[in-house]
Every structure is written in C-alpha cells, then in structure tokens.
C-alpha cells in the first residue's frame, strides 16, 4: 500500500521538477512548484499511517505555507506582468552579472 503511494508521489514530484526546469511561463512554473509540494504532502500522509500523527501535522503546515506562498507568488507575477508586459522568464534578463 505504502509503496504505491510513494511511487505516485515520486511520479508527481518528477513531473513538477521537469516542469520547473523546462517551462518558461512563470504561471506554469508556479503550478509545477505546487505540484512538487503536494507530491511531498502525499508521501507525508503515506508515512503518517506508519509513524503516527506527525506526518499530518507537516501536511497542514505545508498547505498553510503554500497558500501564503501562492498569494505572494501570484502578486509578484502580476507585478512582473504589469511592468514588463510578459511572464516569459527567458525574456526577463535585465540583471546582467
């Protein structure tokens, strides 16, 4: 039972990682990051079945932080769009080292 849950979690996480690494749209990047977080949540819940309530506590924590992060992240994306007229991260390269 736990093995299946962990496999699903790993697949979800990998999809998130690949999304973050390959896509250039900020919104999609954002969604992929959320996917990674929830993949981790899934494995937490799965382990909580064996190790007690701590996993659940973590999941609640992660969801709370993710909600806050979503609010801030979307606000940043809106601000970026207003300023540059695009959310294509490849074109946002005014910081030259």
């Amino acid at each position, binding site marked *: 039972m736990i093995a299946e849950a962990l496999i699903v979690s790993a697949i979800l996480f990998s999809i998130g990682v690949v999304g973050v*690494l390959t896509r250039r749209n900020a919104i999609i*990047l954002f969604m992929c990051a959320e996917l990674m977080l929830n993949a981790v949540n899934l494995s937490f819940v799965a382990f909580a079945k064996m190790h007690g309530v701590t996993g659940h506590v973590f999941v609640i924590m992660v969801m709370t932080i993710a909600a806050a992060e979503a609010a801030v992240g979307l606000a940043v994306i809106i601000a970026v769009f207003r300023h540059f007229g695009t959310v294509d991260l490849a074109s946002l390269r005014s910081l030259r080292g």
Partner: protein
Amino acid sequence: MTSALDGTIAEFGWLLPLLPLLGALINGFIALAPRLRTAGGQGTVAQREAVADASHLTTKGIVSIVGTGVLLLAFGLTIAIFAAMRGVGLEQPFVRTYASWMPVGSLVVDWGIQLDQLSILMALVITGVGTLIHLFSIGYMKADPGYARYFAYLNLFVAFMLVLVLGSSYPVLFVGWEGVGLCSYLLIGFWFSERANADAGKKAFVVNRIGDFGFLVAMFLIWATVGKLDFVGAHGALAGMSGSAVVVSIALFLFLGCAGKSAQLPLYVWLPDAMAGPTPVSALIHAATMVTAGVYLVARASPVFAGAPEASLVVAIVGAITAFFAATIALRQWDIKKVLAYSTVSQLGYMFVAVGTGAYAAGVFHLVTHAFFKALLFLGAGSVIHALHHAYHHSGRHDDAQDLRNMGGLARYMPATAVAMAIGTLAIVGIPPLSGFFSKDEILSATFARASSSPLGTTSLLGIPGDVLLYVVYALGLVTALLTAVYMTRMLVLAFAGENRTGAGEQSALHEAPAVMTAPVIVLALLALVGGWLNLPALIPLGPVGVLEHWLEPVVGTSARRLAGSTPLAHETEWVLVAVAVATAMAGIGYAAMQFRKPIQDKEHSRADTGFAGVLSNAYGVDAAIDAAVVRPVNVLAGGVLARGIDVGVDRTFSATGRLLARTASFIGSRVQDGDVGKYAWLVAAGALAMLAAFTLR
C-alpha cells in the same frame, strides 16, 4: 599556628595598607571629579571669584587632611602593633591569610600579611617618615594645579609599599614591588607635560623590568624547588638545601631584582633621572623607602642568602663597587638633587655591603638612619629649590633653581634649613655621635671582621679568595666614606656658604620655607641626630647597646650567625677602625671646606667642566653609552626591521591576498547571478541531486 599576638591589635594589621589606599581613592576621586562649580550669574565677578577660590581652598584642605591623615592613622596603628609586639616578645612571625589568590593545583598563593620585627620596623619607617613628607608636601605642592592627583599617587605609593613589607609571601611582596614601581613612574613623570620628565618615568619603568625579570625567575626557581612561595614555608624548606647550586641561583636572581629596585650597578641609571619628580617624592620614594626595598628583600630572604655564601659575596662586592662608583660621580654634579641622588645610590651600596656580609641588622640599621638623614637632606634641598623657584618667579627671570652655582650664602636667608642640612650632612658623612656614624661604622667593622674570620672569608669567587675580596670591599667602603665627606661638604658649602649667586634682583625674595615645610625638616634633623641610639655598638655604650640588633634577632639572627666569624674583633682593632673611619670623614670635610670656599661663577657664566671633571659631571657617559649600545639599536630594529619590514610587509601581503580573493569571488558570483530563473532552477536541482548523491553514496 598560634602566635603570641593572637587577639591583639595586630589582628588589624590588614588595615595598614588599606588606610592609605582609602586616602588614594578619595583623593583620586577629588582629582578626577570636575572642579566644583559655583552658582554663576549672581554678584560681581570679584565675588564669584572669591567663592570659587574658597571652594578651591576647601578642596585643597580636604585633600591635605585626607592625604596626611590616613598616613598619621597608619602610623598610629603601626606604633600600637609595635607596642603589642614588644609587649609579648614575639618569637615566631604573626601570619594571617585573608583570601585565596591563586589556588592552581599544587601552587597555592594566599593574600596574607606577615607581622614580625623586620616588617613592623619597615612599616614604622614608611608611615613615620611618610607622614613627615606628606606634611612637607602640603607646603611644597601648594601652588600646583595637580594637588589632589599628587596626594592620590603619594597615598597609593604608601599603600603598595606597606603591601611590599607586610606581604607574607613572595608573590604578595611582588604585588607591592610592582605597585611602588608604578607609583614611582607616575610621580617621576608627575609634570609630564615636559617631555624629559615623562621620559625619565619611562626609563625608571623599563630599567626596573630587567630587575623584575630576575625576581620572577627567582620565584619560579623557589616554587620549582620547594613548591612553596610563602616566606615561612619556603625559607624553612630552602634552609635544608644550603650551598646547593639552586639556592645560589635563587639568591643571585633575587639580587638582580634588588639591583633594579635599589639602583645598584649596572641598573642604577634610572635613579638620577628619577629626580625629575617633585622633591618630596625623591625624599620619600627615591631615598627613604622604595629604593631600600631591595635591602629589605635581602634581609627578608636572609635564610636563602646565608645558604649561598658566594651569592652573598656578590651582593657585598656589587654594593661596594656601586658605593664607590656613585660617590665619584656625586663629586662633580651641579644639580643639588643629582648630588643627593648619586649619594643615595652610594649609600644603598653600603646597605648591600652590610646585608651581603651577613650583617643584616647593620644593613637595616643603615636603612633606617639613611631614611632619616636622606629624607632630611632631600626635604632641605626641596626648601632651597622652593625658595629659589619663588625668587626667580618673583623677578620673572628663568634660571635653574636646582643648580648649586645659582645658590651660595643661603644660610643667611634660610637659617633653619641651613642648620638642618648641616646636621644631615654630618650624619651622612659619619661624624660621631650622629646617626650615620654608628650605622656606617657598624657596616665597615662588620666587613672587616668577616674578612678576618668567617665562612665568607673561606669561600672564593672566580678563584679569588673571599677574605681578599672582603678587604677590598672594606677599602672601597672607606674610600667611599672619604668621597661622601667631600661631595656632601661641597654641596653644603656651595649652597649655604660664601656669597649669594642667585642674582641681585632675586636676593630680596629669598626667604625661609613656611612652617609646614620646616617642621618636618626639624623633626627629621632630630631623628638624624639621635638615630644612632637605636643600635649603639658595645664599644661605645652611651645607652642600651644593640637595641635594633636584639629586636631583629628572631628574624635574621640565625642567618647572621651562619655568615659571621667565630672570633669577634678585639676591642683595640675596633677602636682603630672607628678612628680610621672618623679621621677619613674629617679629612674629607676639611679638604672640601678648603677647596670649595673659593668663589665661583653662577651657572650662566660658568664654563662646562673639562677633562676628568667633565667625565664625572657627565656621569662617565654611561647614559650615552647605553643609548648607543641598547636604545638606538632597539629603535632601529623596532622602527626599521620590525615595523617597516615585518609589520608593514606582512600587512601588505595579507591585504593583497584578501583583495585578490574578494575580486575573484565577486567575478564568479556576478557571472552566475544573471537573472536567468531557469538557470537558477537548474542549479538548485543540480545542488539537490549532488546532496542526495553525497548522502546516499557515502
């Protein structure tokens, strides 16, 4: 350990150093606190100034009363303890420990005091002479803006000096030893706004470091050998090892410390320069008390020195050479304080001759009488300088108020000082029945007696038999007595006899010092007159014989007997020695009185000394030699090699390396951080993978 003094006033011995310390704190606070402000805006300027003056006077009054009062209280307490000690006939030292200082493994050092016949005698001299000199200072420093600071330092000095003599172990003694060194530094450079004075203070401090190195090594050796540092324990343990190389080394290293503090060859150079301080300071610190700490230490460590006859011989020889050497320099000094300074070095040499030959009581006796007559001479010189200074101030002329060539005929203007100085001179020269005669005679005859038969005479040093060396020491002592008579009479004659050379415009302003200054001088003159009765020789029984020697018997008696001869001198021999000593002194006085009656020019019109006189007045050029051999090479090494070479070089290397590192790092950092979020994501992923790999593949 129970003592006969348990439960007596001696239980309050700890108060002795604390009383002057309290005075130092109060006066130090007054010196640091901003001048008391008076209410402004009301009344005329003159009224406000009067109020300010009054408050200033009150401050001075408080400082004077506190500064001198604590000394007087300490003196009273010392007398009470002394009386209690006399009453019970103390055999063993009264030791009290109050707190633990350094309990480190097997090294245990406690804060404690030791009251015995030697320490209470020293405390009597310090607080007694100290009180007189504090009193004198009230008059001498009256117009000085640093009045409170001066008394704070002086009180602090007495506190440390009492720690030095009352401490019950070597480390506690060392605290006092360093403390008086600090106060000496502060007071030599008291008028620090003049470069030369500040430099003189530094010189005293640096030269004393060399001696302190010896003291420290001696302490390390004592601890390494017997594992104890308190006097009672360490001396008891060392007594069983007499004659061993380690005891000789301890004694010699201790003596190196003494040579620094007590200005013996080759470390005497700081004392003449120390005259840069106020004259009462020279009287208290650089004549009566601090510089005799070395003599005290040898007497205190007499069990060590008695167990090392070779080291004792070294002490006596160094003392004799110093006495002679300094006396020759004093012959041709023009600064009245320099004459007295070299005289002090010379007299300290006598004391070391005494303690080196095992005549500890004689050494301490000379210490006490010297404290009387040298403090007297310095305070008298202070009165003279004070008078000349005021006279020059009055006429607005700038001239040297300390130069003998600017004095002359002062007996007419300041008769009391002149008489007191004459008494001091006769005492130091050794004219019977003044104090110096008895103490010096005792030293000379003790040396002579040790040469004819004693353990010292049968030892040898560098192949030279001890008795030969002791006869040389005696001869040097005798020649020094002659030189002492010459230079002291010269000083007296130049300052007080003949025509006055101060200047026509200044003579009317020359006057006797105020009562607060003459009173201590007169008391000291009386002490210098009768101080010899403290320890009359059996040869001249004008009263109770050998009081001081009997008094010190429990402390130094055993050690003294170990170095003394088995057969005392015959009475006839002793009479001959006395006659020779007195005849020498008389000859010196006679010669100098004839020689220096000739009129001389004042300083402005005098030519510099030439020939051998020039060498003497230049003190053999020792300072210049040390400057060339030590000071300048050290400066070159420090400034050129160490500072410019190593310091700056290392500094530059480090800065350059740092700059290069910072630039490289910033170049790499700025290339990576270019705003490409995709690259960041790849780097984060790569980092996470690397960490994962590191943890799993470990």
